[in-house]
């Protein structure tokens, strides 16, 4: 059949069957298609904007916003610009995300451990909690807490009163505000000094244990330094801290700090919802460490505490951390549901109110999306770096 002479090279395939040529052609086509679609959309947008008389650009950021915001972490008045509104919204988003992450992690770890408890009742309660709350949409839970529970709180005059310092009513939870004296600076300095001291101590203890095998109670001594030194400075500098207690004047409370009901319901719902997911992550992480590891650690003579601290937890964390980070990202993204109950977060203030007032749809939505995208990319980059560092080193 073959007509080829022995020793001669096999004939080259025709150029359209050459994988390299094909790859180039496909990529050029794909790139051209993407550019064409992008250009088409851009052109349409230009035409539409011109027809509607909307000037694109970011000049609106310097205009006066003219609306009030119920919660702002940085000074803000109605005469401030939209650019300021952006920062207020971003900080509010970060606040609720940070608090939500903190509480959800605590509750989630407790639930995850409870789910594995040898106590049948505790394990079943944790199971019911997890299956109940992770199968109900977060938005529904937020609505429930906001419209179903917190809207039924009493008016300011009939507040729930805890010892004349804490008040709970439909406008929020009022707590005393700390007022720092000038000398409080010393306490702050002492606290940072204590942190530095503890780090130094931990290094020294680690080195000593490596050399002599003598363990040192770093945790308890460190805790003592961290709490004791600032506390001592606080008393020595004459207790430079006083409390501003909220007071009912007219129909509303003045002074103190307030946690608005929008923040409270958002936080409660985010915590309860995310904790159910974190609990499952923790459970699977702990189960992923095989029982042989525990037995091996016991065989080496490690006691229960060190076994947990030095053998089980480091290995479980390797499994837990990646999905945990994606849950943290979810908390950040889910905090946008704030817009539905009027908590002034980035989406509500910027993609909502600002967009409605200025009509700059493309600019506001792009900025909002870019912020969330930046947060996501930042966290996933950190995550990849961490994973690389902690992953098993195999041959």
């Amino acid at each position: 059949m073959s007509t080829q002479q022995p020793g001669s090279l096999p004939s080259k395939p025709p150029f359209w069957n050459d994988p390299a040529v094909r790859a180039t052609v496909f990529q050029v086509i794909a790139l051209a298609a993407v550019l064409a679609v992008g250009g088409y959309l851009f052109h349409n947008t230009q035409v539409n904007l011109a027809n509607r008389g909307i000037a694109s650009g970011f000049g609106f950021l310097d205009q006066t916003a003219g609306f009030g915001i119920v919660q702002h972490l940085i000074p803000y008045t109605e005469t401030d610009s939209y650019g300021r509104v952006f920062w207020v919204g971003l900080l509010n988003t970060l606040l609720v995300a940070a608090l939500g992450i903190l509480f959800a992690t605590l509750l989630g770890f407790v639930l995850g451990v409870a789910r594995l408890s040898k106590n049948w009742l505790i394990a079943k309660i944790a199971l019911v909690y997890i299956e109940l709350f992770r199968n109900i949409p977060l938005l529904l839970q937020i609505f429930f807490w906001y419209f179903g529970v917190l809207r039924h709180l009493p008016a300011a005059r009939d507040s729930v009163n805890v010892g004349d310092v804490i008040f709970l009513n439909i406008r929020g939870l009022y707590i005393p505000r700390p007022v720092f004296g000038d000398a409080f600076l010393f306490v702050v300095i002492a606290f940072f000094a204590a942190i530095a001291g503890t780090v130094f101590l931990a290094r020294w203890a680690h080195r000593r244990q490596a050399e002599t095998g003598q363990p040192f109670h770093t945790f308890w001594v460190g805790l003592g330094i961290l709490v004791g030194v600032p506390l001592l400075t606080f008393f020595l500098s004459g207790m430079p801290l006083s409390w501003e207690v909220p007071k009912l004047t007219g129909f509303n409370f003045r002074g103190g700090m307030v946690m608005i009901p929008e923040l409270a319901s958002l936080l409660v719902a985010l915590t309860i919802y995310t904790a159910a997911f974190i609990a499952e992550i923790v459970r699977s992480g702990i189960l992923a460490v095989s029982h042989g590891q525990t037995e091996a650690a016991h065989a080496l003579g490690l006691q229960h505490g060190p076994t947990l601290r030095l053998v089980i937890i480091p290995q479980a964390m390797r499994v837990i951390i990646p999905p945990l980070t994606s849950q943290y990202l979810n908390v950040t993204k889910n905090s946008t549901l704030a817009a539905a109950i009027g908590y002034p977060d980035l989406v509500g203030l910027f993609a909502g109110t600002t967009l409605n007032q200025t009509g700059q749809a493309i600019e506001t939505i792009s900025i909002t999306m870019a912020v969330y995208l930046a947060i996501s990319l930042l966290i996933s980059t950190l995550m990849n770096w961490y994973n690389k560092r902690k992953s098993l080193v195999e041959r």
Partner: protein
Amino acid sequence: METKTTFTPHPELPPPANTVGAVGWLRANLFSSPANSLLTLFALYLLWLLLPPALEWLLFKATWSGTTRADCAPGGACWVFIKMRFGQFMYGFFPEPERWRVNLAWILAVLGILPLLGKRNPLRLPAAVFMLFVYPLIAFVLFSGGFGLAPVETSQWGGLMLTLVIAVVGIAGALPGGILLALGRRSKMPVIKTICVTFIEFWRGVPLITVLFMSSVMLPLFLPEGMSFDKLLRALIGVILFQSAYMAEVVRGGLQAIPKGQYEAADALGLSYPKAMGLVILPQALKLVIPGIVNTLIALFKDTSLVIIIGLFDLLNSIHAATVDPNWLGMSTEGYVFAALMFWLFCFGMSQYSQWLERRLHTGHKR
């Protein structure tokens, strides 16, 4: 001296603690140590605080029959509210004489899906063909009218029906896009890989609310003059784009789980890329990721509630709107409990199915 050895029996030991039966179970599982006993008692106390009032409100003191708010007894739930508004919660503003069409569509869907859920049976292939190619057309006609049926605007769709439509269309639309994106992400061609990675990471990085905002505010600007979509379609486009990025990551997980030998074997047989993927890799990969797809569907089902932001009346928004009706003020808790029950039933059912599948599909590659 002579010692006499006599047999003096030890005093009898008490019998070992009971390890079987109810008492044994209690001892092992609830009272194994003092700390555990305390924990058990604490949990029991919590349950005693929580359960009796909840059950009383939900069931024992609740009002089940009547037609108005005045029929409801105080101190208990008023399920009359749910009963009177049930039609609105299920169908939204779908005209009442036409609601049989929605029911028929769901019955057909259930009949079509049932043969697909179980183990192999002869009905599988025809059912799959029906659900993939025929059913979408039938459902579309039933919902929106035509062929002698009265037309119904999408703005009249609502309630559970709309929730299901968004979830099902979202997932069905996202699957093909997700597969293509996943294949593109694993491609060796740098341009195609970059395009796919950028697309996936962009949509995964932004919250769904901003996507919905974008599709309702920015999409009209992208379209040529005079062309416009209705609100539902705009929301669906946003959901599909968003969900296809998540689907791509699910499918990529399946592609990575297929051993390299399979790819090499397909190449060795001389199969072209489409054939190798379509006949060898994807059938195995997709089988592996069915549980992942169901999980994505669950997440999407819960996320459909966000369409409230752009003013569509899904299940949650229908109920939310009904709670502010002046005739039924103060019924928000009943409304939300009902909504929670509906969502929970669907999500829990799907997650149980996905877990069952996961156990059943543990055949090939798991070592």
